């Protein structure tokens, strides 16, 4: 087959090949568009990851407290967001919620997708945080309390520092998942990588090159995040703990 990688240098308006492959003066090439789409993918992913870590950690922590009401809240949250398909949740945020809650109508769809993807993933992170905390010896909590720490202090100084170290590997997978799952944002017209691929291949009829480029960018993004978190994992290893001495 014939490769035609020059397709990325084409002007998106008239299909002319631009000399430096980048557009100028308001005209853009497919390369420009690809990079901007990558930017949207990364923005959706990283913001959703932030939301997911925040709510996931909080809910996971609540589920390990001695207070029944808080445990119920955390469990209900987790079950709610992990028992509905992601794509359906995105549509709920985009179509249903603004209809039920009028103030949401003015919110950009970008933010709705960030919340949808973020809260979906928070359910999974909540599970991991809970598992991490519960994997610690029961005596650690008691030792913290016996020293005079309040329950929040016990979490802050004793339980969480170790629990989060333990769950870095599953959190890494989850962070990579968020980048891959961000592709659902195309369903609500966010101009991210998948949306770009669908539209650009239609306009240029060079689907193979377009999809390969998009594939590469997804891979690079997820893999870069993987390496970053791995570096953190190595850095925070506890000396003298199994797998921790280097």
């Amino acid at each position, binding site marked *: 087959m014939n490769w035609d990688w020059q397709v990325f240098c084409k002007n998106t308006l008239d299909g002319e090949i631009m000399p430096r492959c980048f557009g100028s003066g308001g005209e853009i090439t497919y390369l420009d568009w690809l990079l901007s789409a990558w930017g949207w993918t990364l923005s959706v992913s990283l913001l959703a990851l932030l939301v997911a870590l925040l709510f996931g950690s909080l809910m996971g922590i609540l589920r390990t407290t001695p207070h029944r009401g808080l445990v119920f809240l955390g469990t209900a949250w987790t079950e709610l967001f992990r028992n509905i398909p992601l794509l359906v949740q995105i549509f709920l945020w985009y179509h249903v919620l603004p209809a039920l809650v009028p103030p949401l109508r003015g919110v950009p769809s970008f933010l709705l997708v960030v919340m949808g993807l973020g809260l979906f993933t928070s359910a999974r992170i909540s599970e991991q945080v809970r598992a991490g905390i519960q994997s610690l010896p029961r*005596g650690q909590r*008691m030792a913290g309390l016996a020293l*005079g720490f309040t329950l929040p202090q016990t979490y802050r100084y004793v339980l969480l520092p170790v629990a989060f170290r333990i769950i870095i590997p599953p959190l890494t997978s989850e962070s990579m998942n968020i980048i891959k799952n961000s592709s659902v944002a195309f369903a609500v017209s966010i101009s991210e990588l998948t949306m770009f691929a669908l539209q650009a291949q239609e306009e240029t009829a060079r689907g193979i090159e377009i999809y390969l480029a998009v594939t590469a960018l997804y891979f690079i993004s997820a893999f870069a995040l993987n390496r970053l978190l791995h570096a953190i994992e190595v850095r925070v290893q506890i000396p003298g703990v199994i797998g921790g001495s280097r």
Partner: protein
Amino acid sequence: MIEIRNVSKWYGQFQVLTDCSTKIEKGEVVVVCGPSGSGKSTLIKCVNGLESFQQGEVIVNGISVGDAKTNLPKLRAHVGMVFQHFELFPHLTITENLEIGQVKVLGRSRDEARERGLKLLDRVGLRSQADKYPGQLSGGQQQRVAIARALAMDPICMLFDEPTSALDPEMINEVLDVMVELATEGMTMMVVTHEMGFARKVAHRVIFMDQGRIIEDAAKEDFFGTPRSERAQLFLSKILGH
């Protein structure tokens, strides 16, 4: 100092403590022994409120532990506790383990806390390990650090929950030595242990528990002379038999 009055506790239908009462005066060393599952660990954890109880009262230094209005963290800050599995905080160095409670709970400055911590490390013979992590120390060393961590809070009394049960035999003595020293200095201590040598040496009284009840609560001489209960005699004959 510590008063336990008619304490009963249930896990669901199962009664783990039945009507336990005893009193530990200031400066007294009391050893609690008994077969596993007899409720000794549960009882000692009731003293600083790590375990709740449904009936009775525990009074520590005039404060009722079971009272919902009691500020438990404040009470616990001055009741030292040493656990079977040491429970040092693995992500902190030895020095940080000694500092954190003093700084975050007692509000001491970092320098002050460090100085006090190092002084206690000296005392348990581990000054050279100050910058290591708990996982790099032997069990006996970790337990001595754990004792130092409790002492750093200037406790009014110390609770020991089977402090040598998880140790290799050769490390038991280094921990017991620290505890004996503490006892002879007049620290109020409640010690759950099977180390009868320790009890003989420094205990004032021995409490024997079985099936959630305090069967015997006697002065050391009486307990090792002729325990009144058959169950305690049997227990002693088994653990002193070798």
